[in-house]
């Protein structure tokens, strides 16, 4: 079995490998600028987030291409145009915190140290993927890296995340669980039961809605009679906030506030990240039901574009730098692909392994 491929062996942001042996995920440097953002986000953190935005995009674009070539079978759901959400919130968490991600949160996996090679191995059904071929695409997790495996059944992992937070509370740990679902997922009963339980027990959990305005083909207005998903929080006496989901700094800051509130014993927060799904529901879906004009508008708010504008404004980066990052992530993705392609497929009888656990560790 090939060794798990290292993702960020280079120099650019080497301290931020997303490897959980490092703590915290973000460096301790002081903010460098008096402006709003710069007061609360460290320069290196912002640069790291930019890197992960690019890495997410490059990786998922590669997945999409592989899918179109028929080299990936099964469903492909990307976060194209929504990368800022997972990158932002995962960057705001500490390494001991636990994420129960949404199905368009590739950035969170990367920040938690899932390498492009592992992710591509997962998509290709290879034994070196986090599920060893047992499951595909974003249905991966790893408790050692604080990532709860995604379950197709939308919102099922929200109650699970409240239980993670409950464990923290019972054990008296200052850790936080972070979880969310789509606008569609908020219609499910499990969303309700999780929100309610979190609120009643003031659990250290942050719950978000990745509101990209469609659940598959179903527009928000056919899913709920409210304009802002954040209004759901009122049913639970839970604070809620609307956040620009395409602005990684905004996502980061709002997440950070909610996380720190939870960590301090203040209970859960509900965050609505407003965004737009820029591809089809999955890559086989041309999404003709989305007005083209809407997509054009949202294209202008592309999270990578936005991040670059911010970096330029703050004097943190320029075109050359962006290009350099682009080259770097491209190389990482291609190296990952090589790793994944060279990895072996599992063998038939492995089907029989792992139905039952032999032991259960603490995390």
């Amino acid at each position: 079995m090939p060794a798990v491929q290292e993702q960020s062996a280079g120099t650019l942001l080497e301290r931020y490998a997303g490897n959980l042996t490092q703590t915290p995920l973000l460096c301790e440097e002081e903010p460098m600028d008096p402006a709003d953002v710069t007061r609360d986000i460290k320069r290196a953190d912002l640069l790291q987030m930019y890197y992960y935005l690019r890495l997410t995009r490059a990786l998922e674009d590669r997945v999409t291409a592989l899918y179109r070539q028929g080299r990936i079978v099964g469903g492909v759901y990307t976060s194209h145009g929504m990368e800022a959400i997972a990158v932002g919130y995962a960057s705001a968490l500490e390494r001991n915190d636990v994420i129960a991600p949404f199905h368009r949160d590739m950035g969170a996996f990367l920040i938690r140290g899932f390498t492009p090679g592992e992710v591509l191995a997962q998509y290709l059904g290879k034994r070196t993927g986090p599920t060893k071929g047992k499951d595909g695409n974003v249905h991966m997790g790893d408790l050692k890296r604080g990532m709860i495996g995604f379950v197709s059944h939308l919102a099922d992992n929200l109650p699970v995340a409240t239980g993670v937070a409950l464990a923290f509370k019972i054990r008296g740990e200052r850790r936080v669980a972070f979880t969310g679902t789509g606008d569609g997922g908020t219609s499910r009963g499990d969303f309700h039961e999780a929100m309610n339980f979190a609120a009643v027990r003031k659990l250290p959990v942050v719950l978000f809605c990745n509101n990209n305005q469609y659940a598959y083909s179903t527009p928000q207005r056919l899913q709920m009679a409210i304009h802002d998903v954040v209004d759901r929080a009122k049913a639970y006496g839970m604070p809620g906030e609307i956040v620009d989901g395409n602005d990684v700094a905004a996502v980061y800051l709002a997440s950070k506030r909610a996380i720190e509130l939870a960590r301090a014993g203040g209970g859960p927060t509900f965050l609505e990240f407003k965004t737009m799904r820029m591809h089809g529901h999955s890559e086989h879906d041309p999404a003709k039901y989305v007005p083209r004009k809407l997509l054009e508008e949202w294209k202008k708010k592309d999270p990578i574009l936005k991040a670059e504008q911010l970096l330029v404004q703050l004097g943190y980066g320029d075109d050359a730098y962006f290009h350099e990052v682009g080259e770097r992530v491209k190389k990482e993705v291609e190296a990952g692909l090589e790793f994944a392609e060279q990895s072996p497929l599992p063998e038939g009888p492995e089907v029989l392994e792992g139905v039952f656990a032999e032991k259960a560790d603490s995390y």
Partner: protein
Amino acid sequence: MTTETVQRQQEVTYLEAISQALDEEMTRDERVFLMGEDIGTYGGAFKITEGFMAKYGEWRVIDTPLAESGFVGAAIGAAMMGLRPVVEMQFADFISCAFDQITEVAAKNHYRWGAAVPMVIRAPFGGGVHGGPFHSECPEGWFFHSPGLKIVAPSTPYDAKGLLKAAIRDPNPVLYFEHKFLYRRIKAVLPSEDYIVPIGKADVKRAGNDISLITYGAMVHLALEAAELLAQEGIDLEVVDLRTLIPLDKDRVYESVRKTSKAILLHEDNKTGGIGAEIAALLAEDCFDHLDGPVLRIAPPDTPVPFSTPLEEYFRPKVSDIATAARKLAAY
């Protein structure tokens, strides 16, 4: 030549057969309406209801919020009032979210207080499509054990259309398991006139004398393939397609096994607690004196459906599994 061309044109896929059944029933009976995720504007994840919303309007083709328990519950209410809802699960796997409504409300209402619940739940099920653990499940075994539900699982376009019509006309909750793998892989010419395939009737898809191979769904095709192969070896399989799982056509199954004296049960659902277990038990009780050999089951192992191709191939029953079992039984 001309006739052949005409016939070719009339060939429809398994998927189209389902679509036709829905369309014809909606035209025939204005009480029939559809609910599900993305079935309206989008025409459904598998495009079975494409064009239906334009034709029948948004109150007979209802794009629901993502809430299986909620919309199955709503279908139950509408059914009790006298409508004929047909609900689509986007994938059969998500039926677990509506399990409580199906087993506790829909299944028991008539028994408890006499309220008929004439509704259909369409559930695209089964593997072989690289779907992994959550897009390949065979959930029929869960419901097999809940009195009050009828369960059908067609294997051909003819049966798919006829059973769906029968299900829609049935005064009870019917779970209709349609196999995703078959959607676009099989075709047939269907009768132009209205017909149903009655619920509760198995069908011998291939007559034979040596061994009864009892199955349903996509496995019927595997069974037929195996039967051809084994015929060359002089083993004559009778392929019984259950078509309906509840109520089970015991008579037809018994008739076959009493003739052949040997039985193999084949399904794609997990082995333990699958429908094969029930049939084997029935045979061991009611046909014991006719049995000339053990009752064999061929089914996937007791694991979730794995994603990766070599795993899923290992997981799924194969022609060679049937051949091995049949040779063993034939030699018995």
